[in-house]
């Protein structure tokens, strides 16, 4: 490269900036399209008024646990004034963006912790979160290795004759990390559907023996390892479930189908914290007038935990093959 022939160009710095900008756009642009993934994580504010929320949004802790709450404030003009409240009553000295509850007590169970924020223009906002407190340590049920013998599967297929089929294996590598449960759907030309309820043999909780349930937390990772792109899928569902008295329950607010495909976004972790008795939807026999569906009381029938996957093909769709992976499945049961 000869120095004598170098002709400095005024456009060179501009070209540098353009290349860097294009590179960054390529990184962000190769990321997931939010229109496919559902509601965006970040919603641009349409209203310029102050907004506030408290993190963590919902949580259950064992009595004695130190709990930190954080105020997240948007669209505010600094400096900000904070006042934390417990069940509507100001907490003395709690005037910062965070509040630490130094050892949750059983008396805090169900308490509403709020923060009122006012900015320098006098605009104010308030947000809160409910804390659940259990006297007992959490009961954790989980599987990260997925031996086939650990699980049972019940299938509901449409059409029932010559309809979709399925197969489950323990994939020894490629999970996040290590082994994972591989579920293969062989779907016949649409319309068809296949609903698989996987229940862990040992993941049971018996309220009669172990005590009434206060709340549950669920988390899992899901991946679509391969699929037929020509097929038109419908009825997608992937969620943690439990079975009780012949009904299958899943959290009402669970993200419908979190499984992603391919590359660095192959495994998607999804979780939901502090789901209480009235926050489930179920399939199975109708709930009788004298029944609780589900029933978390100390006299309730045993619960068995797992996950459900439903896939269907729309009318006119060609047959399709889908291989899904499930890893790091975990249920936390908090006792009353």
């Amino acid at each position, binding site marked *: *490269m*000869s*120095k004598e*022939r*170098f*002709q400095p*160009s005024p456009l*060179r710095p501009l*070209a*540098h900036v353009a*290349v*860097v900008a*294009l*590179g*960054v*756009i*390529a*990184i*962000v*642009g*190769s*990321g*997931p*399209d*939010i229109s*496919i*993934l559902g509601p*965006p*994580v*970040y*919603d*641009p*504010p349409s209203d310029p008024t102050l907004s506030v929320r408290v993190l963590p949004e919902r949580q259950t802790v064992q009595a004695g646990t130190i709990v930190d709450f954080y105020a*997240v*404030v*948007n669209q*505010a003009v600094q400096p900000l004034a904070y006042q934390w409240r417990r069940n509507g009553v100001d907490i003395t000295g709690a005037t910062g963006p965070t509040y630490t509850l130094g050892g949750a007590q059983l008396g805090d169970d169900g308490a509403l912790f709020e923060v009122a924020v006012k900015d320098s223009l006098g605009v104010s906002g308030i947000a809160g979160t409910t804390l659940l407190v259990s006297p007992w340590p959490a009961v954790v049920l989980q599987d990260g290795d997925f031996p086939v013998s650990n699980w049972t599967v019940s299938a509901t297929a449409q059409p029932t004759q010559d309809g979709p089929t399925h197969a489950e294996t323990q994939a020894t590598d490629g999970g996040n990390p290590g082994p994972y449960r591989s579920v293969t759907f062989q779907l016949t030309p649409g319309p068809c559907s296949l609903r698989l309820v996987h229940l862990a043999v040992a993941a049971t909780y018996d309220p009669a023996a172990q005590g009434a349930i206060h709340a549950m937390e669920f988390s899992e990772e899901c991946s*679509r390892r*391969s*699929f*037929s*792109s*020509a097929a038109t899928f419908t009825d997608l569902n992937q969620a943690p479930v439990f079975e009780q008295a012949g009904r299958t329950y899943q959290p009402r607010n669970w993200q419908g189908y979190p499984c*992603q*495909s*391919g*590359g*660095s*976004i*192959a*495994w*998607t*972790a999804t979780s939901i914290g502090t789901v209480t008795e009235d926050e489930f939807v179920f399939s199975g026999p109708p709930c009788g007038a004298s029944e609780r569906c589900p029933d978390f009381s100390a006299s309730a029938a045993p619960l068995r935990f797992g996950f459900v996957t439903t896939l269907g093909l729309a009318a006119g769709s060609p047959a399709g093959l889908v291989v899904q992976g499930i890893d790091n499945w975990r249920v936390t049961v908090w006792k009353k």
Partner: protein
Amino acid sequence: MADGGKRSPGAVHVPSTLAGLGALAFAIGVLVYLTDRDPGRAALIPAVGVLSGTALFGAVGAWLPSFTHAFAFSLFTAAVGHPNASVPAYGACAMWWALNSAFELAQLPQISHAIVDALKSAPVPAWLIAPLSNSLMHGTFDVADLVAVAGGALAAAAALHSLQRKDCEHE
């Protein structure tokens, strides 16, 4: 060979060669999205029906775009860089390694949440925050991508070294 200079027979025009190599690598990276990823999942890459689901690259497709991005943009940056530099533009490779690695690390949940929260309270326009936040929050950290990024930057450095030697031999 610098911009505008007369080349001796057999000499390579370094900026053009760098840009060409970069464009080839970039095209391969895009092809992975078209053949091995969910149709239309990437925000800026449209689905092409005839290619979708062909899984042309198999397991390699999981990390290849990370490799090609670091490789391609290192070469693009070097191509528009100072043409009479006495040493190849290794700084471009280091910059794209650092930038890609930072984006990958920022997908770790404990980091992505902090960044998104910080962006929301920062004086940054919403049109910029939204895609960036969603990219970080929906992306998944993968060590293989970090390795691929480093490999891409090193491969670019090797290409720069090789091309500079060829260029010098023809001076």
